């Protein structure tokens, strides 16, 4: 099920929240667990088993790790073994279901057709929930948290519907307290609804419409578009992916708040960044945080000399790219950031610091181009697109850009405005309760209107 659907808004929300708010506090986790199972199984019943297996394996591993080094036993090697086995299971599943096809295709390309692709479809949300459950088992191993003895509590953490499918990646330590006891306040529910509706509107009103422009370009064929239209496409996709993903994250945060949880912020106006380093502090914050916490720092971070630092950065950005998709273009996309982050780290950042205008152009341009590597999975097509962007011949007849500017200009302008902090600052400063409430209702109404007529409604980040 997706948040931005009438099914979720008008069936799931009324039924689920009625049950959730009415059951006694001790049954809330059960309600949340069962509701999340329905939410997940609605679109993907077969992979439910994979989730159940993950819960059982990690819960069992946690309990056994606690048992192996407790008052009565002292078997650190057993503990280590269990930890390793659980990690191998978690990442093994991710590897098998997400990357088998990619490796089979590449091995076959080099050695001839020696392997058969089992053709797995990607289990919904596996990239996200693998990282979440790994945070539990790793933190447990490091002794930062205690093992969860109640399998339902751990299961609730893993399947919690707001963030199960596309993040934010909530590490266990952030919510463990709330998993055991949480209060639901009117204030939190009210704020949650407001955030949820903002997320819904981001997705339905801006991302979907900007995405329609981008999809048209593919249908027309990259070779047939003018240079201005190609640039319009870059802007449209840049806005689409932000409002799509941030919209999803906001909806998750809002729903979390309505449930009594505090889900961490995932985006902080990334497009106002003045360097790519800053961009990654503002974009998909929970993912970069996860990589820093569980890969970069354990590898030694920047504490082991210059060369090791760059090697570590390389590893992190290779993995970041590869996490986004089993394809060479995603690896290239990660490498693109590795190169520029390295340049910034070694000498560029000071220069960017001093030149405001240049640093903004530099950042937006590179971010936009990086999205092209991300969006166009075929390198030949990517080459065609790049040629359109930079060849003056493609600017001879720009009438197609006029058409798209007319039809999508408003969405693009709105997208640019809402990419800056000014709009949310203005809303937060609104004194009038009626005005705030009115804005939320108008956005909800407009989103419902678009949903009632929409056939086009995919979440980009579901592919990962």
């Amino acid at each position: 099920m997706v948040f931005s659907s009438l099914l979720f808004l008008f069936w799931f929300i009324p039924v689920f929240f009625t049950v959730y708010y009415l059951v006694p506090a001790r049954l809330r986790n059960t309600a949340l667990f069962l509701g999340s199972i329905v939410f997940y199984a609605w679109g993907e019943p077969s992979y439910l088993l994979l989730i159940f297996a993950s819960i059982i394996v990690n819960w069992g591993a946690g309990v056994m790790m606690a048992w192996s080094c407790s008052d009565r036993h002292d078997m650190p090697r057993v503990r280590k073994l269990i930890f390793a086995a659980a990690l191998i299971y978690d990442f093994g599943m991710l590897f098998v279901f997400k990357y088998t096809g990619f490796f089979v295709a590449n091995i076959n390309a080099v050695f001839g057709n020696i392997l058969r692709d089992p053709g797995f479809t990607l289990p919904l949300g596996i990239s996200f929930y693998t990282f979440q459950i790994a945070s539990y088992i790793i933190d447990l191993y490091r002794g930062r948290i205690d093992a969860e003895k109640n399998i339902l509590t751990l299961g609730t953490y893993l399947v919690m519907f707001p963030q199960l499918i596309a993040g934010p990646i909530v590490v266990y330590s952030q919510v463990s307290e709330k998993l055991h006891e949480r209060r639901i306040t009117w204030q939190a529910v009210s704020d949650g609804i407001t955030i949820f509706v903002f997320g819904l509107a981001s997705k339905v009103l801006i991302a979907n419409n900007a995405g329609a422009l981008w999809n048209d370009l593919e249908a027309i064929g990259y070779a047939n578009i003018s240079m201005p239209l190609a640039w319009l496409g870059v802007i449209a996709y840049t806005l689409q992916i932000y409002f799509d993903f941030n919209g999803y994250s906001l909806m998750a945060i809002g729903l979390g708040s309505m449930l009594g949880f505090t889900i961490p912020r995932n985006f902080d106006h990334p497009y106002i960044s003045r360097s790519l380093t800053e961009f990654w502090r503002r974009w998909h914050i929970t993912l970069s945080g996860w990589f820093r916490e569980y890969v970069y720092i354990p590898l030694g971070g920047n504490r082991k000399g210059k060369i090791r630092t760059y090697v570590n950065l390389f590893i992190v950005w290779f993995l970041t790219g590869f996490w986004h998709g089993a394809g060479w273009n995603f690896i290239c996309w990660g490498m693109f950031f590795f190169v520029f982050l390295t340049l910034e780290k070694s000498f560029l950042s000071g220069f960017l610091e001093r030149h405001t205008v240049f640093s903004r152009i530099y950042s937006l341009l590179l971010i936009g181009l990086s999205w092209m590597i991300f969006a166009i999975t075929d390198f030949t097509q990517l080459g065609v697109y790049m040629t359109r962007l930079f060849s003056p011949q493609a600017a001879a007849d720009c009438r197609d850009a006029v058409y798209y500017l007319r039809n999508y200009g408003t969405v693009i302008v709105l997208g640019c405005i809402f990419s800056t902090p000014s709009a949310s600052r203005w809303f937060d400063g609104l004194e009038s309760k009626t005005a705030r409430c009115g804005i939320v209702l108008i956005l909800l109404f407009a989103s419902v209107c678009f949903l009632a007529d929409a056939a086009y409604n995919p979440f980009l980040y579901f592919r990962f």
Partner: protein
Amino acid sequence: MNKTLRYIIEYPVVVLFFGICAAMFAGYLICPDNEYSQMENRFLQQRPAVSAPSVADGSYMESFETYTNEQVPFRDILVRCKAAFVWATGSSENNGIARGQRGLLFDKTMAVSANAHKNIAAIGDFAAGAGRDVYIAVAPTSVWVNAEDLPVGMPVLDEAALADELGAALAGSKNAHIIDMYDILSENRSDNIYYRTDHHWTTRGAGYAYAAIAESMGLDRQDIGRYERHEVYDFLGTFYARYKGPFVLADTIEYYDVPVDELELSDRSEHDLIDTAGFGGFDKYGAFMYGNDGKCVVHADKGIGKNLYIFKDSYANCLIPYLVMNYDNITVIDLRYFGGSVSEEIAGDEDADILLVYNMSFINDDNHFYKLVSR
């Protein structure tokens, strides 16, 4: 109680949000399902019945989600509001339909499809193997003829390239004759030859096409004006069903009472070419020839001594009243719904003329042309 009331006033969003969601939920449960959308001219998904196999293979969930979209309370109002929002942003387009000059709506088709090449090849093979003259009348769409009225820069299907491809596919067969209708339609484009809100040509547009066909096939061109003319108002066609924006001008349908002895449809018989009751519904163009049928035969027995086979899409439905004036019997075949063999069918009357009437957008999209040449 007092405390709850204070919270409700303090946090109005909470009550309003859950209230709206709950009310809509109740609406789904209480309101009977609509079977058919008049505005969009299509059948809607009903609430599906639960069954173990349909849940297991996911089809239940899929239909249920479609059901929630198509039966949402106030759907027509919501959908119209969406179209109005889009219009208010200055966009000329909604759901792939763009509004151009003179209130004309246009279908945005961005590229030649893979089907187009297969379809053109099938037409070429059919003409080569027919063993007699085959006339091919491919109508340009309103996008191509009314190109001046398009919103600036709108992407269009390259119909000229497809016409060239068709010409090349037919170049080898001496029996194949392409009837060029572009020139005559284009010269008369100010004469409302296409509906504003529908993808079809008008009865008047079909009249110009008839002139081109008559000239090419050597028919004695007749004047349809000698039959009684009628007008039907408030026609909102297929383009409108998708566009749904404000300030759209409805079309007027013209038709003539061309008498026939019998219209033999696949499941029944009628005695005229036009289903006047059909003008009462939303899909008014469907009144011509009682809509599309796999095979229907028009008997007009005027003693002319000439019969015709037409292979066609719905464009032909308002053209047939013209052709009836020149033939005794016309066998009309719509390959989409035709279950028989084309070669056996045309072997039934070896003296009859053969005419294909299609519009270019149909050739680009359809996938039934293989039936022309398969046995």
